[in-house]
């Protein structure tokens, strides 16, 4: 599958870029003869724009379908890391073994790790690095803190997938994103209902007009807006950008 993905460099393979150059491009150099050197320089210049780590040590997701998948991978890493901490925290471990919330959070934790590992496997050599989260603002011993944080992550994930659909070119990746976003929406809905009954849909996440062009539709967000929020939960050196997804 990775054969169909346009390669981009990642922070730990900067020196090994030729390994990721597709066969066709290499063959081209052979036939291009004298101009090959100059062309390679130009391509190297282009690759600099797509590289995953810029001067400010921001992890860029890259361009095209790889960019969208890496963007999703970044968000899934963040969610998976959050729920992994939830499972260790006092709120979760203090719940009765058969409590509904315990089971719900255990399920969601599994789902998000499954999502993250799926993208890691699918992206293979094109995947961004493992990100380091910063959850210092969250109190994992406190129910309200955990639930409101979970709501924020899930709503953000739904808005992000919906907003990124337009950047996908390969239908099979659009379908995969669609398969995941509805599960994120299910997570968001139950968590919101746990916080406030009947808030599974509300005006903060859905346009509550019934007559506007975006009537009763999710308020999707473009990558730049999503990442501004997501980056507040990522450590220095793990902040993510999506410069090509605009």
């Amino acid at each position, binding site marked *: 599958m990775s054969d169909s993905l346009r390669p981009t460099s990642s922070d730990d393979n900067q020196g090994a870029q030729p390994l990721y150059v597709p066969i066709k491009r290499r063959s081209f150099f052979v036939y291009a003869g004298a101009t090959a050197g100059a062309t390679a320089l130009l391509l190297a210049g282009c690759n600099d724009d797509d590289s995953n780590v810029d001067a400010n040590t921001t992890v860029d997701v890259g361009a095209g379908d790889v960019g969208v998948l890496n963007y999703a991978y970044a968000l899934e890493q963040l969610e998976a890391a959050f729920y992994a901490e939830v499972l260790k925290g006092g709120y979760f471990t203090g719940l009765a073994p058969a409590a509904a919330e315990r089971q719900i959070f255990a399920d969601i934790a599994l789902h998000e790790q499954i999502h993250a590992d799926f993208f890691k496997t699918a992206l293979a050599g094109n995947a961004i690095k493992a990100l380091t989260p910063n959850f210092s603002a969250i109190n994992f011993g406190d129910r309200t803190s955990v639930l409101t944080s979970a709501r924020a992550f899930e709503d953000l994930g739904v808005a992000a997938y919906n907003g990124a659909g337009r950047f996908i070119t390969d239908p099979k990746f659009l*379908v995969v994103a669609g398969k995941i976003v509805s599960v994120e929406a299910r997570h968001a809905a139950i968590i919101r209902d746990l916080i406030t009954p*009947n808030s599974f849909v509300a005006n903060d996440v859905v346009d509550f007009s019934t007559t506007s062009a975006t009537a009763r539709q999710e308020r999707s967000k473009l990558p730049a807006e999503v990442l501004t929020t997501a980056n507040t939960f990522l450590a220095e050196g793990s902040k993510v950008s999506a410069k090509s997804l605009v």
Partner: protein
Amino acid sequence: MDLLKIFSEIEKIDGEVYERFDTRRRVFRHMAGLGKTITAATMPVMLGAMFNKAYGQTTGLSADIKNTLNLALQLEYLEYYYYDAGLKTPGLIPTADVPAVTIMRDDELGHINALKSVLGADAFPDPTVAAFDYTASNRLAPFAAAAGYYATAQSLEDTGVRAYKGGAPKLMANKDILTAALNIHSVEARHSAHIRMVRRTLAGSTNGGDIAGGANNQNPKSWVSLRENGGPVPAVTAPIYGPGTTTDFPGEDNVTQATVNVQNTTTYPTVPGVTLTDALKAAAVAEAFDEPLDDLTVKAIVRNFRSAIGVGKGLFV
């Protein structure tokens, strides 16, 4: 300049490019009819005119987009009138959930209005409540008690989620319409999750649901778990939770995504107090991905809910 090559390249991202230009042959007849030699200088002007004609607003939406949105619109009518009928049945909906059903009904109304505005004159006309038979020819009694009402509601919402997912690739040529459809799709998924929670409450459940919804799907999770033991009303809606039809449209118990066997490639977190057996892993992986339904299967499911009037109006054809 190799025109055929250009068309071939466009075809990769727009399968209907030739239809947009009427037919491939007519394009060239049109060019021949200009009565002058095609030169490198005149070509860009001609191409500009051709592409403007093919992709300009006046040509309207492609057949794929119109068909996909009109199926979605008919599903929205189905859901809107279902919730509206429930709200108009005294004592059916638990008082505490009336606000939720009202939200869902109004969500469907908003979706109807939005889809109608995109489709314009091509929109499937409002068939009215008379077009629907929610008893599916007296096989169901959804307005007799809350449990039955929410059972059918879950089936309709899960159908909607799967239908939008299946239709999305056909909307890729128009990014704004695609985004609108995605933004509706996730709202339907939120509905399904809420309805599933209500069904747990109605069943007296105190947990978060059982794998596959437990016996007779009486205790569903908020997400689709494996094949839901056939679903809440299997006699009518079996294909929603069925085995699937093709690799592109698998059953909800699917664990392979984009050729990746996700069950085998996941590094599972440690869940305190839980031993993750292979069966639990398979269920979690299946739950983590909702699956699309193809339009023919969607229509076959929802045709169960047409009245004779609905048949006469060409609903779900």
